């Protein structure tokens, strides 16, 4: 059985370093399988977060050969195994140890976004009526598995550490899903512009490229939100139009 070397970020704090581990690989294996095998064979204390092994829980996010990926969805036959495969924790969050980072900041940010607030029910039985075409647009955003790979690759968080002022692509997708919902009545644009710092996004589309659910984050969520912010705060003609039409 062929062997491959995995260069894994191990340890915690300033003592963390890359360590090489060799293990057997076979057809159909993914990076997470290799990590589990290494845990079983030679590194029983190696910490990594995982759960479903099916690309749906978003737990095993890491950086494989420098690219933010889900370890359970990264097949070894897509990697060059003649050289060591590097596996690192995400870079935009506090490191705990080995491959584990503390992503709890994301949940605190999510709580700060106003929740769904539907209009009054359309029917006496307390139900609503919506057109499928109107729901289709936000359906894409519901695919998010909160793996936070988009947050990891976003340079505003990763390279500029704007966590206190910037919500990040995951929360723009979440906000877009609420803002564009045909039943929602809440206004989150002020929050997006100020606390969410959507203006920090400079549209590099890295978030879209790494999304394992293939959500078109930049084109369908972030830019439409930016345009809504322009409507509300930067476009004098739109504001004038609103004054005259009341819309």
């Amino acid at each position: 059985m062929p062997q491959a070397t995995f260069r894994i970020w191990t340890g915690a704090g300033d003592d963390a370093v890359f360590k090489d581990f060799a293990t057997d690989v076979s057809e159909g294996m993914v990076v997470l399988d290799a990590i589990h095998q290494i845990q079983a064979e030679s590194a029983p204390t190696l910490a990594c977060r995982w759960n479903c092994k099916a690309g749906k829980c978003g737990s095993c996010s890491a950086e494989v050969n420098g690219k933010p990926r889900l370890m359970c969805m990264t097949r070894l036959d897509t990697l060059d195994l003649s050289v060591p495969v590097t596996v690192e924790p995400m870079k935009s969050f506090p490191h705990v140890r080995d491959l584990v980072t503390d992503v709890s900041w994301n949940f605190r940010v999510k709580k700060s976004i106003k929740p769904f607030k539907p209009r009054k029910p359309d029917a006496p039985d307390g139900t609503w009526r919506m057109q499928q075409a109107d729901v289709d647009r936000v359906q894409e955003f519901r695919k998010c598995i909160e793996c936070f790979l988009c947050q990891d690759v976003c340079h505003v968080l990763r390279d500029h550490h704007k966590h206190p002022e910037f919500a990040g692509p995951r929360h723009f997708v979440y906000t877009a899903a609420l803002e564009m919902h045909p039943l929602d009545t809440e206004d989150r644009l002020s929050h997006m512009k100020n606390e969410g710092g959507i203006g920090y996004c400079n549209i590099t589309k890295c978030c879209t490229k790494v999304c394992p659910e293939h959500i078109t984050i930049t084109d369908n969520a972030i830019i439409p939100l930016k345009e809504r912010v322009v409507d509300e705060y930067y476009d004098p003609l739109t504001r004038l139009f609103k004054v005259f039409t009341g819309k």
Partner: protein
Amino acid sequence: MSRVELKLPQLRPLGATQRTDAWWIQPVLTLLGLGAFIVYSTWAALQGTHYWVPGTNYLSPMYSPVLFDSWQIAPASSGHAWFGAWPDWIPKNLWVLSMTPAFLILWAPGGFRFTCYYYRGAYYKAFWADPVSCAVGEPKFRGTHYRGEHKFPLLLQNIHRYFLYLALVFLVFLTYDAIISYRFLGDDGQKHFGVGIGSLVLTINPILLGGYTLGCHSLRHLIGGKKDCITDCSGARQGAYRGVSCLNRRHMLFAWLSLFWVGFTDVYVRLVSMGTWTDIRIL
């Protein structure tokens, strides 16, 4: 956002990454492609000559619409100028640069491209290394001082939709230029229908520009994206939204194709006008 102190990994220097693929190719190609177009279009705009082909209606898109004929060609006339010869109240030179009809108009399509969402992402990477590529370290001096489009001056990128309005008007002008390029001056001194290679070149130009302009993110928003219930709009508007969304998915492709074709159309008109190339008449 959450104000809790986060102990984050140290910022990495420019180019630092574990990526093993050729991540630098895309920014380098963007740098070369956009850089070449900027250099060529600046050179072409400075010329003030050979922007139309006598005996035909061929007109370079970099000079269209011609508000005033260039002072360099006086007393000749291109036949395309809206307001005649170069007026005395516009200086002929600005410092060491020659003023030409292109300078009076190029700021509009240039501004449209400069503020375009696609190009912004592309040139932030290629020209400013912000970031140079996904998951690759940035210049350290920017660090936590990063302002993005949140503050001045890049806050001004929000003007994009106004450049869109101008770009739509220019699209009409360039479509008109394409239509009249099928009329040629005959031996009898009258204009007759004909088809030259130049006519085809000038026709492809607004088609590609249309693909780019009509796929604009701002247009997508204005035409229907701003509505939570798109089905509240008229059928025509819903159709337009779907059409713009379709083009929007190919925005990068049309951005590059149209950029290249604008440059090529100017080259074609210029070289035919100079007599270097012969325009072959198909009909």
